[in-house]
């Protein structure tokens, strides 16, 4: 039996069903105020009989088994448009949408999208934490249909869901936690340009020229919410929930990688050249960092000052990187291709940039102490993290290799972008496409260009 906050019941119910139990439990709940320092805890005594009953008399409501597979819903309208409006109302009433209009996942649309995978529709990808809903290929197609997606996006979504459900990703905890984590999918390989996944200007936002990222990310978010149970304030305690409409799905700008730079998928996960892959990490912040100088800097000064600005920005004791201190990522640094190429010409390498960032983002012990950082480090589950408390200045991550450095963004040298990591692990998956994928691409070209 459980003692918990009233606002935490959804999280608890999800956690219970995620363990394979019926989604209910004996709980005694109190308002959040009782859980704050200095609170009046006398209600525990006043309601003690509820604890005793929970241990001796609680029983499961018979209807609490979560329902069956592939249930269908129907609405009727006077006209097709009226039916579409009513479907959207029903979807919101059932808390299945995200506030923006969705495509109802009709049989026809789901069948169409399922053409995008070589896997059978009933193939189980895993159980989605924390609720424990069974994630299938068909479930991916349903979410992608709702998100306005297309068949050629499905292989990326399926790979993303596989990575998300890998325990190494940390999704089991991050789905429910208050830190507002969002998944970041970095795509490498030929599939990115084939499906029009953006790697250039505005690659983190919606773009009618490159519509894939928004649909794939939105579909993943809908699965997090519907299959995984992460409804804000009910199944997830994320305080702010930034970037949740579309998560972050983009491609590395491989066409503009400098000589000697290995694509991220091969470097971090060992995928072969020409392999399409995704790499999933979690982040919980996104900030533009001005990179270029403004006056008469030499190229060397311009590069060095930009590196210092980026490292200085990372040198903050908010401890987001603790989640992946040992083998995850303190963040994802995105730099445009033109910057990577210029810095390579000046003698910088990917390794030397990572080492610079690691060294210059270390936090002096006094600053960490005054911000209460040591308490969080000392309670961490990782011995490597706990032992790092002895280091002064304190590195924000265990090794320089943990930094994810990606070439992406428009061909303009002024800015870089930092996705603050909150990522226990970084998980890669190969993207598998069906034999008839080229036909799907031809159909997409026809549909999306009017050709």
């Amino acid at each position: 039996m459980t003692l918990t906050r009233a606002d935490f019941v959804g999280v608890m119910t999800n956690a219970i069903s995620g363990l394979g139990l019926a989604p209910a439990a004996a709980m005694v709940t109190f308002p959040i105020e009782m859980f704050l320092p200095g609170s009046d805890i006398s209600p525990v005594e006043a309601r003690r009989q509820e604890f005793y009953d929970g241990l001796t008399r609680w029983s499961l409501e018979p209807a609490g088994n979560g329902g069956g597979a592939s249930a269908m819903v129907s609405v009727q309208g006077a006209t097709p448009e009226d039916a579409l409006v009513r479907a959207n109302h029903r979807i919101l009433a059932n808390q299945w949408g995200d506030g923006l209009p969705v495509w109802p996942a009709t049989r026809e649309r789901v069948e169409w999208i399922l053409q995008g995978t070589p896997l059978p529709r009933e193939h189980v990808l895993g159980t989605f934490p924390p609720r424990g809903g069974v994630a299938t290929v068909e479930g991916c197609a349903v979410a992608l249909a709702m998100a306005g997606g297309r068949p050629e996006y499905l292989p990326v979504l399926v790979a993303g869901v596989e990575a998300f459900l890998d325990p190494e990703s940390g999704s089991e905890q991050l789905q429910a936690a208050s830190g507002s984590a969002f998944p970041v999918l970095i795509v490498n390989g030929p599939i990115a340009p084939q499906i029009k996944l953006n790697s250039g200007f505005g690659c983190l936002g919606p773009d009618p020229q490159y519509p894939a990222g928004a649909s794939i990310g939105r579909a993943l978010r809908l699965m997090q919410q519907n299959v995984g149970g992460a409804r804000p304030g009910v199944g997830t305690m994320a305080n702010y929930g930034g970037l949740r409409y579309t998560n972050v799905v983009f491609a590395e700008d491989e066409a503009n990688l400098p000589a000697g730079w290995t694509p991220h998928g091969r470097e971090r996960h060992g995928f072969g050249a020409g392999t399409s892959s995704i790499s999933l990490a979690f982040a919980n912040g996104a900030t533009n960092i001005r990179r270029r100088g403004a006056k008469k800097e030499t190229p060397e000064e311009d590069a060095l000052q930009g590196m210092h600005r980026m490292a200085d920005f990372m040198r903050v004791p908010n401890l987001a990187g603790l989640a992946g201190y040992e083998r995850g990522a303190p963040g994802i640094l995105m730099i445009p291709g033109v910057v990577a190429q210029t810095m390579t010409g000046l003698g910088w390498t990917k390794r030397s940039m990572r080492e610079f960032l690691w060294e210059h983002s270390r936090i002096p012990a006094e600053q960490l102490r005054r911000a209460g950082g040591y308490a969080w480090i000392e309670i961490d589950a990782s011995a490597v993290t706990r032992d790092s408390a002895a280091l002064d200045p304190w590195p924000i991550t265990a090794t320089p290799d943990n930094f994810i450095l990606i070439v992406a963004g428009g061909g303009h040298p002024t800015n870089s972008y930092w996705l603050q990591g909150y990522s226990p692990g970084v998980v890669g998956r190969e993207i598998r496409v069906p034999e008839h994928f080229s036909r799907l691409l031809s159909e997409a070209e026809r549909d999306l260009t009017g050709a």
Partner: protein
Amino acid sequence: MTTLEFYDPCGRLEVRQPHAPRLDTLRGKRLGFVSNEQWQAFRMLPLLKSLLERDFPGVEVLPIDAFPQGNALIGNEETAAEVKRSGVDAVIIGNAA
């Protein structure tokens, strides 16, 4: 009239194990706490322990720190095994995260 039929996007749940049976009484039983040590657990759980001991003579309530505490430890298999080995009849889990 137009009918639009579409999928419920939530997927199915698989119930793989039953909830633990309830105790017939608390008298003479051995109880424990599994605590994340946050949200005033250090005040509320000892109060609950004292209430149980007052209301049910003969009950044995283990100390609050009898099992590993903290979010990083209470959910792992080692802690679950330790709880089972202790021979407690039931545990109270608190205080959310």
